[in-house]
């Protein structure tokens, strides 16, 4: 609630709590502005600041930390020699149930985050005290798949941007949380929702949709950050007359899925934005949608000004194992080689030339049984007998994949790519079902197999050159935590047992851990304020921060 819209009694109480009368309040604001009271808050996050995010490592300006999607912090105050001394500094509780998946942003001392059920908040990053809180009034009939989650905000100018569970994009005033504009992307009742953090490129808010469980037709949209006006839409399932439409049987393209539910990356040098897409619908039943099903499970290179497709690479053709390619496509340069690295849900670690979209290499980073051969380009090909059957067919990785939406990280110092791997095979079974708008449309069921050994997981350090695993940190069970690397020679990750862990990036040796009391379902980040470095992660319903004593 903004101060000026507060009822008088509330306003008096609010000001009294600050030790002020309503007469004093404007005076105080004026004095603060005039004296440039510390910490100085720069009002505007310009497109240039986003491009130069590496110059201000104290801030975390976008979901993956930088346009390359590396989730790497150049801060090194916390390092291999002192990480063992880390202590919790503050926690912020959303008091909401369900998975808390946010990656916070930090800009000039203010932390912006999102919570379950489309909560958003701004905190004093030094103390954790809220500056404003927002919660969207969601329609009662939304049934988003997989939890009422959100993974974060984007920021530009004096606004933060939120994708909502009822498929709106809204701009909030960064200082007050007031809604500046609110646009409907599509009718949520058909099964669409938005859970990702938007990506800002120049003056555009770029988002994609979730809904691969409903037979939606996926798309990626760009909106004018100032007005909310839609500038372009790219359908991830091409319509009649468009290239790729022939990869769908009959009318199946209309409900083809291919949602884009993880934040993309951006290469300013070529003015190209990279987005990834999820499963074709129905996810585990290929009957009725014969063909490759473009552009499901693909990497898309788009022109951010127009949404024009420059090239695509499809990881899992005609997928029937729910192998969404919605993992952050990480931009890495190695000398003259301009690459995209992606550890895919299907169990392969792909290295792709991002100028051409051609495959460089694909090597398994987890147990894989769906493919046992490669085509001439080196891309893995699905085994004919790996498809789900009515009785069930055991395939690895399982339905949750060898990894999932949790972010990987690329550390330019070790030149290693770190990813959360899940070792879990499942029995895939079909469940034939008619499409009905807005109703779940899996065409599938899945079961844990009867393996004697329990599911496990690991943080794996992959060498992009060889595709080999350099080291691994074993998790007792598969985790949904992402990974952060820092210039202090550290990687941070969480586990399903509730630990937040600091490891030596070069060796995988654990240097520190903290028990958060609930599974980590988020990807960590780092920031600094007053010259002090913090690491933050969401777990349970709390956002935790850690720093040196």
């Amino acid at each position: 609630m903004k101060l000026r819209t507060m009822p008088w009694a509330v306003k008096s109480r609010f000001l009294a709590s600050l030790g002020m009368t309503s007469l004093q309040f404007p005076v105080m604001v004026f004095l603060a502005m005039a004296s440039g009271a510390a910490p100085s808050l720069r009002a505007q996050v310009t497109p240039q600041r986003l491009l130069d995010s590496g110059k201000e490592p104290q801030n975390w300006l976008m979901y993956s930390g930088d346009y390359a999607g590396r989730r790497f912090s150049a801060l090194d105050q916390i390092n291999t020699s002192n990480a063992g001394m880390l202590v919790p500094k503050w926690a912020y509780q959303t008091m909401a149930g369900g998975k808390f998946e946010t990656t916070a942003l930090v800009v000039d001392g203010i932390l912006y985050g999102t919570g379950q059920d489309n909560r958003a908040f701004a905190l004093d990053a030094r103390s954790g005290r809220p500056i404003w809180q927002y919660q969207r009034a969601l329609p009662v009939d939304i049934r988003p798949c997989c939890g009422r989650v959100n993974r974060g905000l984007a920021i530009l100018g004096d606004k933060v941007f939120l994708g909502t569970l009822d498929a709106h994009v809204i701009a909030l005033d960064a200082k007050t949380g007031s809604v500046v504009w609110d646009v409907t992307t599509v009718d949520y009742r058909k099964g669409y929702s938005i859970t990702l953090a938007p990506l800002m490129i120049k003056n555009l808010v770029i988002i994609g949709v979730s809904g691969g469980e409903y037979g939606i037709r996926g798309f990626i949209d760009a909106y004018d950050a100032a007005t909310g006006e839609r500038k372009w839409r790219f359908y991830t399932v091409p319509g009649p007359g468009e290239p790729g439409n022939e990869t769908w049987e009959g009318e199946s393209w209309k409900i083809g899925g291919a949602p884009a539910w993880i934040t993309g990356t951006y290469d300013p040098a070529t003015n190209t934005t990279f987005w990834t897409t999820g499963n074709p619908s129905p996810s585990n039943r290929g009957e009725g949608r014969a063909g490759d099903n473009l552009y499901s499970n693909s990497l898309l290179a788009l022109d951010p000004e127009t949404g024009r497709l420059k090239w695509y690479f499809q990881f899992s053709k005609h997928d029937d194992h729910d192998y969404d390619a919605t993992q952050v496509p990480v931009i890495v340069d190695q000398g003259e080689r301009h690459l995209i690295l992606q550890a895919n849900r299907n169990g392969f670690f792909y290295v792709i030339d991002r100028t051409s979209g051609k495959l460089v290499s694909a090597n398994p980073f987890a147990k894989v049984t769906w493919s046992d051969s490669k085509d001439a380009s080196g891309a893995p090909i699905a085994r004919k007998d790996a498809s789900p059957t009515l009785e069930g067919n055991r395939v690895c990785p399982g339905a949750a994949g060898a990894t999932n939406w949790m972010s990987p990280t690329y550390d330019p110092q070790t030149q290693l790519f770190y990813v959360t791997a899940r070792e879990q095979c499942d029995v895939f079974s079909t469940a034939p079902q008619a499409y009905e708008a807005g109703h779940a449309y899996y065409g599938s069921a899945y079961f844990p197999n009867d393996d004697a050994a329990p599911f496990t997981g690991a943080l794996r350090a992959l060498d992009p050159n060889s595709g080999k695993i350099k080291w691994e940190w074993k998790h007792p069970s598969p985790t949904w935590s992402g990974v952060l690397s820092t210039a202090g020679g550290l990687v941070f990750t969480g586990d399903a047992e509730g630990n937040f862990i600091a490891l030596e990036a070069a060796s995988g040796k654990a240097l520190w851990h903290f028990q958060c009391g609930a599974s980590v379902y988020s990807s960590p980040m780092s920031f600094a304020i007053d010259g002090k470095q913090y690491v933050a992660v969401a777990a349970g319903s709390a956002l935790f921060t850690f720093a040196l004593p």
Partner: protein
Amino acid sequence: MPRPNFQRGKLWPRRRRLGFLFGCAVVVACAAAAVTVRAQEKNPFSGDAKAAKVGESQFRANCAFCHGLGARGGGRGPDLTRAQKRHGNADADLFRTINEGVPGTAMPQNGATQQGVGMTEEEIWQVISYIRSVQAKAPAQIPGNAAHGKELFYGSATCSTCHMIEGKGGRLGPDLSTTGSARSTDYLVESVRNPSRRLAQGISEAMKEFSQEYETVTVVTAEGTKFMGVVLNEDHFTLQMMDTREQLHLFEKGKLRSLEKSRESLMPAYDQKMLSDKDLQDLIAYLLGVGAL
């Protein structure tokens, strides 16, 4: 999509239970809303074979993970083809069980599982139609002599050394008070004849805060003391265990001289010599009878 999320070792926030209590309070407060749900006590699709067919698909997608294909119960959920349902037999009972879940068990609230979409009211009724189409017409005559089964449990079969039923028995193995109704008969037989095949609760217990599998563990402390027992919980850094003398031990793994885990159950495999087929049948009759189905 990130739908599947069943895993062992997960800590489920305690807050969820409080949330449930709060939810109940809201339901009581909003009596008007409750009436609209209660108004429909009968399945609108009752006897509709087409609805049962649609319900089968919904069942496979939403329920079969624990209850098995064909609703016969996997290693994780009750056999729903039995005529008796522990939490009520009427249509309205089944609807409530599916929609609201069963607190204190692995049965989650519809749509609140963090995986999958959940079902609409219509889809729940279709699932109920499916369950009705596959379940036995009348309560099965349980073969075997339950009274003799009870004697075996507390006597010569020595089950109660490690297992508790309704407050009486040992602590080292799982409490079996509700196991008869919560697992299929095949699973019970397998658990007695071949307990290591699938440990206590299978490989996952979907919605429990954490799943105890009763893995066997042997540790040697820094001082050289050896303990053998079962894992109650563990993470990468710590272990919480009960030894064979029912003593709790809480360890930091890094400080132990050695730690070995095994998925060979501490429970002996009861072969024909130890427990005849007839005695096993009596024992299962007893297990099925406790918890007053």
